[in-house]
């Protein structure tokens, strides 16, 4: 018994280290590619303050904040998806499919729509307020979906279907609002809604960092409850877990993570869906291990997608959400075909 546990632990540690190495390698690849190429050695030199002024400008003011944002957003969406799948006991749950992302997106667009004249969009307050606007939208969407799907209990398939419907409704309202905007905001919002890390700057990183640093550790700490949910509500209650309370807290964490991520990265679909599956395949069913692995895979996946989006059709950029969809929708369809 003990040797099995030690083996699992070692496996987990090795996996974390391997993923960490991948992330570091990808980090340097991503930093050195772009319209203006900077070799990895120059990147290291610049990071050590030995590069040219132009290189320093490109790296520190443009590429670095974008990449850090990609890492944060990827991690947050992946953890959000892991929790949602655990809580709903539904393999196909994800903040994008359930409509939580669109709810957050709608709140952000409303915020831009009503306050665009009062605040400059890149202004400090507005950046720090945006995650809160998104959070309100995400919570609103989550509560709405939950209430609409409630019919003497929550059934996970009904939850997903209701999510699709709510998603479509919010989408229609978004379209109407968007077309009332002036052309410049229109384009910006369109690209952002497709999932794009726009206006990547250090303020966004600072606005997002506390959410990630606070909520992901709480999620790992609460992971045991997710494992117990796997056994079914009755067993969980028998083991002394206050089911509804734990479920509520976990849902709130998932919604908050998704909301804040959407505020900075737009509506990136499928990431939160696919990553937990990969993590489960790699490490097994224990959520205490799944969540940290998901965090790293999510960060890595979004960074890869971001790099692909920036380079494959350069100089035009593909929104990162589009790349994520193209990479992971086939996997979703595969899951669907396998599901009973």
């Amino acid at each position, binding site marked *: 018994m003990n040797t099995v546990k030690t083996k699992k632990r070692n496996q987990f540690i090795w996996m974390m280290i391997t993923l960490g190495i991948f992330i570091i390698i990808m980090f340097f690849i991503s930093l050195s590619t772009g319209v203006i190429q900077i070799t990895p050695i120059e990147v290291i030199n610049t990071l050590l303050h030995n590069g040219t002024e132009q290189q320093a400008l490109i790296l520190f003011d443009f590429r670095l904040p974008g990449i850090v944002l990609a890492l944060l957003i990827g991690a947050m969406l992946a953890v959000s998806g892991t929790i949602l799948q655990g809580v709903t006991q539904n393999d196909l749950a994800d903040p994008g499919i359930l409509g939580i992302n669109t709810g957050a997106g709608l709140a952000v667009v409303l915020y831009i729509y009503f306050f665009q004249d009062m605040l400059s969009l890149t202004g400090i307050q507005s950046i720090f307020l945006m995650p809160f606007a998104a959070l309100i939208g995400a919570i609103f969407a989550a509560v709405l979906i939950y209430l609409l799907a409630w019919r003497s209990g929550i059934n996970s398939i009904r939850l997903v279907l209701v999510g699709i419907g709510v998603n*479509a409704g919010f989408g229609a*309202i978004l379209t109407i609002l968007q077309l009332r905007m002036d052309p410049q905001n229109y384009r910006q919002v369109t690209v952002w809604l497709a999932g794009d890390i726009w206006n990547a700057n250090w303020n966004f990183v600072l606005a997002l960092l506390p959410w990630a640093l606070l909520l992901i550790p709480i999620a790992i700490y609460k992971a045991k409850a997710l494992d117990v949910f796997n056994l079914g509500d009755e067993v969980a209650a028998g083991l002394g877990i206050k089911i509804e309370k734990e479920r509520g807290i976990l849902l709130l964490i998932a919604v908050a993570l998704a909301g804040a991520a959407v505020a900075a990265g737009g509506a990136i679909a499928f990431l939160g869906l696919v990553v937990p599956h990969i993590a489960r395949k790699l490490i097994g069913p224990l959520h205490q291990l799944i969540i940290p692995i998901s965090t790293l895979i999510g960060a890595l996946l979004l960074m890869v997608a971001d790099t692909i989006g920036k380079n494959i059709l350069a100089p035009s950029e593909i929104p990162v959400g589009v790349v994520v969809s193209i990479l992971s929708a086939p996997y979703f369809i595969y899951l*669907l075909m396998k599901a009973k």
Partner: protein
Amino acid sequence: MRAFINHSSTLKTFINIITFTALVGAIALSVSYGATKVPLETVWQAVFRFQPEIIAHQVVQELRLPRAIAAALIGAFLAVSGAIMQGMTRNPLASPSIMGVTDGAAFALVIILAFYPAVSNLGGTFASLIGAGIAVSIIFIIGSMSSGGLTPVKLALAGVAIGALIRSISSVISLHFQLEKEIGFWMAGGLDGANWNAVKLLTLFGIIGMLIALFISKSITVLSLGEDMATGLGQNNTLIKILGIFSVLILTGISVSIAGAVGFIGLIIPHIARFIMGKDYRWIIPSSAIFGALLLVLADLVSRLVNAPFETPVGAITSLIGVPFFLYLARNSGGGSK
């Protein structure tokens, strides 16, 4: 859903006549209202005693009348497509927009716009037929390869995933060729491009599609009772399905190529038609056509009035009407049993 009326075909005919009259009235309203109001009397004159030197007559003849007729035809075609799909698959959530058919047609048009911008209307229409066909094939391949077949839920999820995938690829192409605004508006669904040429194309393709639909309507009724029973009655189900898919492709393809992605009409209308007309698809299909036409003509009118003089995409209006209905269906069919 239990039928509202069970026996009297006189009553059913009567309802269809009333709805049809309402449709004519709605078309007249749609022609009359807009950025500038044209009195109904002038509309009448413009149609029956057209004088080219009067501007109001020109507006009616060249802009509003073809647009209203196109809206009626497209609404009818989408609703009939939905009715056929729901009948054939016995799946209450089946419809062109849910199953990714519209996204497939849109994708083909994006490719045409990007690579062969000089293509004719007819060429664009054929492209969208092919695109819709590819999307339907993908859905059916997924259905035949997945364990347990395509349940309503799986179908909706597969449609969402394939729709998202196809839309993503479309947006890559449109971003690369800087077509995003053009395609964004078109994807949102709108009838502002509808002219007499569009009406001609719609009529041409529509006659073929609708004739097939009516021809197989009785067999769809049998099919909707269950495949085993249909086979037992000696029906060639494969042939009926091929004809059904073919007419869905024609009707959806031509609609999408003109109005873009107009969602949810194909989903809602067949339910309403079934509720009123009962289980017989010989009634459901014609009624769906009339109801669908009425809904899209009215939605188009709303789309022009709600934020005049700017147009709101009609697809957004039909979605807003359709979503509550979808939610109702999802609550009732999605999870009662499982």
